[in-house]
């Protein structure tokens, strides 16, 4: 080995050579060069010459760090080199170790224990600091356990340089090995009184890190922190102390009272923006109930917002977002600045401003805000534009369109949004349009209008982003065709040639909608014709009777209008008359025939489509036309006689079809299925193979939540068939065909818009409103948002009813999380701080340890100045489940009334002193102070 080793030493390339080499590499050859260097390193690192080894390791570390070379194989060499007496070698070795060791998997870490111990006790401060920084990087539980004694010594080292590093390093040790807290915590706390700024800074930083994880344990140290807050003038330290108080104040109301003043003072006095910002954040996040302080802070926020520095602007907006949760006025006060920030060059600032703007939204200003935002969106780049739209859609639909009063406006607005060129939120708009259609009856008329303008616009068909919206629009047009002013025009739109650009799934929605429109037209024609001819035909009679009793859409409107305010009434009545009149004017035999021919001509070629969805629907439509056509031709034109029978058949068929489609869809709760009573004689587990004969070519959705849809059929007497009888009811050939249709279309009623809710039954929404809530009949309970609960007087129009389901519709199925497992560190901290006799789950065998802890416990009251150390009952400490009771003799200074906590003290003198206070405080505790009585009692401080 000596030979090659010597050669390596003499001709070894240095790190500089490697760096230069990498830099000079022609592009693409870098990996080759690195691989070659690695080969060298592999050889050199085995060298017995420490210098050679060190340089090899140094090169390897460099390649690892900046070129991602694996160096886990060299872990042992790091350990080897770390024992070198030369500091430079040690440094290289430790750096390599801290950059490459994985604390949980590198097993040679244990071999480093001894060397670290030696270096931690070295006389050279730099050796010690090197070891400390390495320890903090590669710390694992074993290492922490083994080195705790050394750290304990270093925590009170006379050299500040070492001591502060030891304090910083101990955080990692605590995290890895919570038992170390029991040993070292006292010494750490002592450092809080250090006069050395460096040490103080680090120790406060340490407590800040600890308090962020579990603040409650550190409440007893509040007096020390308070002292620092008041006395210290170092911004770094103050920032950290503020962070600690931000965590502590919410836990202890009295604390907030004490600190709010000095914090405001700091905020007013300091010239440092960082400190001012921290004060601001502390106040708005943790002390928001102190109005005057919040006012001051908001004033400061405004300064930040007005500043030219984009950083301050950004941070100011962030602070404002936090204030907004509790003090909306703060945002409103700065409204113009926020809106201005929307057009900032900085994306971050824009987003932050957008978030703020959306938090301002309420019923009163939603229109205005949306208008402003939309105009912003149209000016912005596509990315931010969509960001804005996403926020708008989200906010407006929040909690069942809580902020929307004027749905007509909102629906029109959605239509507008869909037309914005960069809009990529089609999916969301689609969902909302359909959702509103089902939930908000009063918005349907406008919805149909919007849908019409969307469907009719041929330009939109080319934009893939709006296809979802178009699907929704088509569905709405078909579903609520009765509200449409001109079904013919609609049909043309649905069948326009450019629909070929649509995706198959959207196109099938179009075809299905066309089908609905067709049936509606024929039905209306039949009805009209029947009325005109004044034929007392039983069936046509029944149709109109059905109307009156509330099956069809149009009648719904009538029944609705009874209960609605005049204003509403007028609109609906208007819609009603207009659709009725259009029917009267246009529904001639020719127009119907024209319609049928149009459908046939357009859909005919599609019967051979490759897409099953399209093919399926087209065949349905064509099949229906096939049946209808001869009957339309014949009898309706001429007169009476034998053909009367055919006519009846036709109208019966039309009526049945119409009934199928006029069943209204409503939102269905996820648990609705459970509420369906099982009808007698229905065998749920029956083999469904007969069904396959009917629905052979229908693919069932694979979702497990699927259930059969059973549209109810309303008969003359408006009583529905028992569901199980449904199939056996109508027996003629045509009606069994219809049953098949019903099944198919039922299954595919909402192809993609389903969004997880299964429409397993329709709420009988055709019935008069008062019946809607009739629980006896309804399978689904519908609740109306109570109109009275909110003040709506200022609205011209009452907010339409939004159908909501009782059980929250999967809103917050927030399952109470099981209690978080005990934080071991804080458990230990509490023990030390609160002076409990240690006896817990964690195994502690050393009895000497125990006694030393006793000593610490006794000393605690002395160390905390001005502490009136009250007795402690620790029943509620999470996890450990122990309940302890310990009494201290304590010194009480300046005890003021009304401020003390409940005491479990048996000292006679104190009892006498505090008897009536105690009573008071108990009352207070019962009155709902957020510190439960059993929680660790916090010493009254600084009273």
């Amino acid at each position, binding site marked *: 080995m000596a030979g090659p080793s010597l050669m390596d030493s003499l001709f070894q390339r240095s790190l500089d050579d490697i760096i230069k080499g990498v830099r000079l590499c022609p592009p693409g050859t870098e990996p080759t060069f690195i691989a070659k260097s690695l080969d060298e390193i592999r050889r050199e690192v085995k060298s017995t010459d420490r210098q050679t080894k060190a340089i090899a390791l140094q090169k390897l570390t460099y390649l690892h760090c900046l070129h991602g070379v694996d160096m886990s194989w060299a872990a042992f060499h790091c350990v080897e080199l770390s024992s070198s007496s030369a500091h430079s070698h040690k440094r290289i070795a430790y750096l390599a170790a801290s950059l490459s060791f994985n604390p949980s998997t590198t097993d040679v870490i244990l071999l480093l224990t001894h060397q670290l111990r030696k270096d931690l006790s070295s006389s050279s401060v*730099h050796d010690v600091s090197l070891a400390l920084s390495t320890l*903090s990087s590669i710390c694992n539980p074993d290492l922490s356990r083994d080195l705790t004694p050394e750290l304990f010594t270093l925590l009170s080292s006379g050299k500040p340089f070492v001591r502060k590093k030891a304090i910083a390093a101990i955080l990692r040790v605590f995290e890895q090995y919570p038992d170390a807290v029991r040993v070292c915590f006292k010494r750490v706390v002592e450092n809080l009184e250090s006069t050395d700024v460096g040490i103080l800074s680090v120790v406060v930083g340490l407590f800040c890190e600890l308090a962020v994880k579990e603040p409650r344990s550190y409440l007893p140290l509040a007096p020390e922190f308070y002292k620092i807050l008041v006395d210290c003038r170092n911004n770094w330290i103050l920032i950290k102390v503020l962070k600690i108080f931000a965590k502590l104040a919410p836990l202890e109301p009295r604390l907030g009272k004490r600190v709010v003043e000095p914090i405001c003072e700091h905020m007013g006095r300091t010239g440092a923006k960082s400190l001012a910002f921290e004060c601001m954040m502390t106040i708005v996040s943790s002390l928001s109930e102190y109005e005057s302080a919040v006012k001051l802070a908001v004033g400061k926020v405004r300064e930040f917002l007005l500043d030219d520095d984009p950083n301050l602007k950004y941070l100011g907006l962030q602070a404002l977002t936090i204030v907004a949760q509790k003090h909306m006025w703060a945002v409103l006060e700065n409204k113009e600045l926020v809106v201005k920030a929307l057009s900032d060059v900085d994306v971050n600032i824009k987003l932050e401003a957008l978030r703020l703007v959306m938090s301002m939204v309420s019923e009163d200003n939603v229109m205005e805000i949306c208008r402003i935002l939309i105009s912003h969106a149209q000016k912005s780049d596509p990315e931010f534009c969509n960001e804005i739209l996403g926020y708008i859609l989200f906010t407006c639909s929040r909690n069942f369109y809580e902020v929307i009063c004027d749905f007509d406006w909102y629906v029109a607005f959605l239509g507008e949004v869909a037309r914005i060129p960069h809009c990529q939120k089609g999916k969301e708009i689609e969902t909302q349009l359909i959702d509103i259609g089902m939930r908000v009856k009063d918005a349907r008329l406008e919805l149909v209008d919007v849908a019409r303008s969307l469907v009719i616009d041929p330009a939109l068909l080319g934009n893939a982003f709006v296809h979802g919206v178009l699907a929704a629009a088509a569905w709405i047009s078909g579903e609520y065709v009765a509200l449409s002013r001109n079904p013919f025009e609609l049909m043309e739109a649905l069948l326009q040639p450019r629909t070929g650009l649509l995706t198959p799934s959207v196109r099938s929605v179009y075809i299905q909608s066309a089908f609905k429109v067709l049936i509606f037209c024929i039905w209306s024609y039949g009805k009209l014709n029947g009325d005109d001819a004044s034929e007392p035909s039983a069936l046509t009679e029944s149709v109109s009777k059905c109307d009156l009793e509330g099956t069809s859409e149009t009648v719904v409107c009538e029944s609705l209008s009874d209960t609605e305010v005049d204003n509403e009434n007028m609109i609906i009545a208007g819609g009603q008359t207009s659709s009725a009149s259009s029917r009267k004017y246009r529904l001639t035999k020719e127009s119907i025939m024209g319609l049928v021919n149009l459908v046939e001509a357009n859909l005919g070629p599609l019967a051979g489509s490759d897409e099953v969805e399209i093919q399926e629907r087209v065949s349905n439509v064509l099949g229906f036309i096939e049946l209808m056509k001869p009957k339309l031709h014949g009898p309706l034109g001429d007169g009476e006689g034998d053909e009367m029978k055919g006519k009846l058949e036709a109208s019966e068929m039309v009526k049945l079809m119409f009934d199928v489609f006029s069943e209204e869809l409503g939102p269905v709760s996820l648990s609705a299925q459970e509420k369906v009573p099982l009808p007698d004689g229905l065998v749920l587990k029956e083999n469904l193979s007969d069904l396959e004969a009917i629905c052979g070519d229908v693919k069932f959705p694979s979702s497990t939540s699927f259930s059969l849809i059973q549209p109810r059929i309303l008969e003359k007497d408006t009583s529905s068939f028992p569901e199980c009888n449904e199939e056996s009811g109508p027996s003629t050939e045509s009606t069994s065909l219809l049953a098949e249709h019903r099944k198919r279309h039922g299954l595919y009623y909402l192809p993609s818009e389903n969004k997880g809710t299964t429409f397993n039954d329709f709420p009988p929404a055709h019935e008069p409103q008062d019946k809607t809530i009739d629980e006896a009949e309804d399978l689904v309970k519908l609740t109306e948002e109570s109109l009275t609960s909110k003040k709506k007087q200022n609205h011209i129009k009452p907010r339409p009813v939004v159908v909501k389901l009782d059980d929250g519709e999967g809103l917050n199925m927030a399952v109470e999380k099981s209690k978080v497992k005990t934080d071991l560190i804080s458990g230990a901290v509490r023990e030390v701080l609160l002076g409990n006799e240690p006896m817990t789950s964690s195994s502690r065998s050393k009895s000497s340890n125990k006694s030393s802890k006793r000593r610490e416990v006794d000393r605690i009251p002395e160390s905390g100045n001005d502490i009136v150390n009250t007795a402690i009952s620790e029943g509620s400490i999470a996890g450990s489940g122990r309940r302890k009771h310990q009494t201290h003799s304590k010194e009480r200074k300046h005890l003021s009334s009304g401020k003390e906590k409940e005491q479990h003290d048996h000292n006679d003198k104190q009892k006498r002193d505090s008897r009536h206070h105690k009573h008071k405080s108990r009352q207070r505790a019962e009155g709902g102070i957020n510190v439960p009585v059993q929680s660790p009692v916090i010493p009254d401080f600084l009273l």
Partner: protein
Amino acid sequence: MNDQGKPRLIRFYEFQPVEKQQELVRSIYKILCSRAENVSNFVKVDSLFGPLVYKTFATLYFVFIFDNSENELAMLDLMQVFVETLDKCFSNVCELDVVFNFNKVHTILDEIILGGQVLETSSSEVVMAVEDISKLEKNSNSIIPSIPGWQGR
């Protein structure tokens, strides 16, 4: 890292596999180079564990990622301290200094931050410590005959 996205110094205070490190560096570079000048120095990135603050000095991006126990503006100050220290140690620091003094820059950083906690915020203190260490290294090296290498600065 420099303005080409080449990392010059990477330090993590919680273990991350090398691949993850490289990926993070790439994603950060992508974000930073898309940002215009004169915009705020803070970026919130979901893929990171905390907010990010960056600053450009000549050809270099300095990037710190921190958690909520640090003050945003203080981090900017800390960055200033770091750069100041570099400047003092290398007198008029440039990218090449950082490139060729891998170990020394790490030493400097170690004096400022330990285990993710801010240790020292005064650049003169740091410079003193670093010079001390350099001396110590020279001495220890002079015992063993030194082969040309990394001490040549």
